[in-house]
């Protein structure tokens, strides 16, 4: 059984079908890329899975248990964590305090939560900035913090929303390495991304969306050669 599955997932906004009958599975330990042109509905899918939006219909299951319609904090508690496309730190607090807050989900005492936070910060390479104010970090460090917050909730599935956005090529390499390390530690990853280099390098599989629907699925190398995918990105002439 897949760890995370969406079946017939649909979300309407008035007359607009942002996500239409989307079905895909993610197996434990996989890194799955969710790609597609802008406006394809990828972030909406993340919002649906993590409870920030209710599906209009369809089901979302984690380990066979239905999670569609649950509130975000409950989804996180069940083991699905996310990062936001535009990072959402707690800007007035220190980096350590940011991650400690997330660690409180699994650790009752402040001492335990703080140790867990320090461990996570080490893994994402932010330990040296633990006392800095979150609002004052560089973009790369903010992305690390975003990931650290999600990891501190000890998720089984991590949803990354465009983690490479705005990073330069060497930063993309660093970020990709962190994602691979995360998977090695046992976390399943689904990432929405436009930076093709990263997708090709780290995903086991990709799911391609266009206009809210799945148009292709498979290993990254073959998916990007699929005529439907090329047409979606570049228009029919190019396909």
């Amino acid at each position, binding site marked *: 059984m897949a760890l995370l599955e969406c079946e017939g997932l649909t979300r309407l906004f008035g007359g607009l079908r942002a996500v239409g009958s989307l079905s895909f599975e993610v197996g434990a330990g996989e890194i799955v890329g969710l790609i597609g042109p802008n406006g394809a509905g990828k972030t909406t899918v993340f919002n649906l899975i*993590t*409870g*920030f939006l209710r599906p209009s219909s369809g089901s979302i299951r984690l380990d066979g248990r239905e999670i569609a319609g649950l*509130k*975000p*904090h*409950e989804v*996180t*508690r069940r083991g699905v*964590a*996310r990062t*936001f496309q535009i990072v*959402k*730190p*707690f*800007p*007035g*607090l220190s980096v350590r*305090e940011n991650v*400690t*807050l*997330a660690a*409180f*989900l699994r650790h*009752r005492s*402040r001492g335990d939560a703080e140790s867990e936070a320090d461990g996570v910060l080490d893994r994402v390479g932010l330990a040296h900035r633990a006392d800095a104010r979150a609002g004052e970090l560089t973009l790369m460090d903010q992305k690390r913090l975003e990931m650290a*917050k*999600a990891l*501190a*909730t000890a998720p089984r599935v991590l949803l990354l929303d465009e983690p490479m956005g705005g990073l330069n090529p060497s930063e993309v390499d660093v970020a990709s390495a962190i994602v691979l390390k995360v998977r090695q530690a046992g976390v399943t990853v689904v990432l929405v991304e436009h930076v093709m280099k990263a997708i090709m390098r780290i995903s086991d599989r990709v799911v391609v969306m266009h206009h809210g629907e799945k148009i292709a699925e498979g290993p990254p190398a073959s998916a990007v050669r699929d005529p439907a995918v090329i047409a979606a990105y570049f228009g029919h002439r190019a396909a």
Partner: protein
Amino acid sequence: MSRTAAIGWAAGVAALAVLPFAVRNVFLLHVVILVFMWTVLGAAWNVLGGFAGQVSFGHAALFGIGAYTTIILFLKAGVAPWWGILAGGVAAAVGSVPVGLICFRLRGPYFSLATLAVAELAKLVALNWEWLTNGPVGFLITTLPPLSLFGHPVDWEAKAPFYALAALLMLVALGSTAWLSRSRLGAFLVAIREDEDAAEAVGIDTVRAKVLTLALSGFLAGLGGGFYAFYFRYVDPDAVLNIGLSMEMVFIAMVGGLGTVAGPFIGAVFLTTIGEAVREHFQVGHLIFYGLFMMIVIRFLPEGIWGRARLAWARGRTGARRHGAA
């Protein structure tokens, strides 16, 4: 807690114990009692507004529930003041939960406007449900019970018992605020204030946190209301459910310093003492002063008097460290 904080608390409690013996002037004691009562109310608002960042303009409703509960329990069932006031606090806390569940679906100014509407509705209910609240006539306590505490009979005509009660309630209010600021719930509230969606995303149940905080806030406001009922002995919708009361609670918390523990006390000291002085000398117009003071504080001291003091102290310390360490 830190050594300075512990010394501060000890000194405060000692001062409280000594004061009624040092100050004999009845009017001054009255003002002190009012300061304590308003500290409780300011702290109640501060818990929700300063810590949880939810600005309510309807706290008078919670105050009113406390006042009515206490006075009704006394007049109809002879419940003693201390139990009645406690019951008032509990009633207000319980009453705040449905209000919270409705209003917390809204954010920012929408939430504030909703609390305003709820409070006005509460006042309408109090005015019209005469079987419960005696309508516009209200309740009057003519004689207080002959009670004794630890063998000493309580003299309700003197200020002393009210002073003790008010001081105790104030310690409860400030103590709960201090506890909140250091607790896990307090940390969650900071997260919610910083970014509510991000807080949900890291597993914080934001609705539960807000409702619990509102319940604490309601409890404290209800305690204040219960005290009011016994001290002033008269409760009617205009006295305990009017929007001016809600605004005063906001003012005290703001003037003192949102999100601080001692802020409400400082705010109460300023607003109450000068307000009462104005009232004594000019009979009317103390609200003119409140409005003006509020405007001045927001314009020049948006962190409140205590908030600004703390900032200055912290900056002074870092400066000293920087200069000293070199």
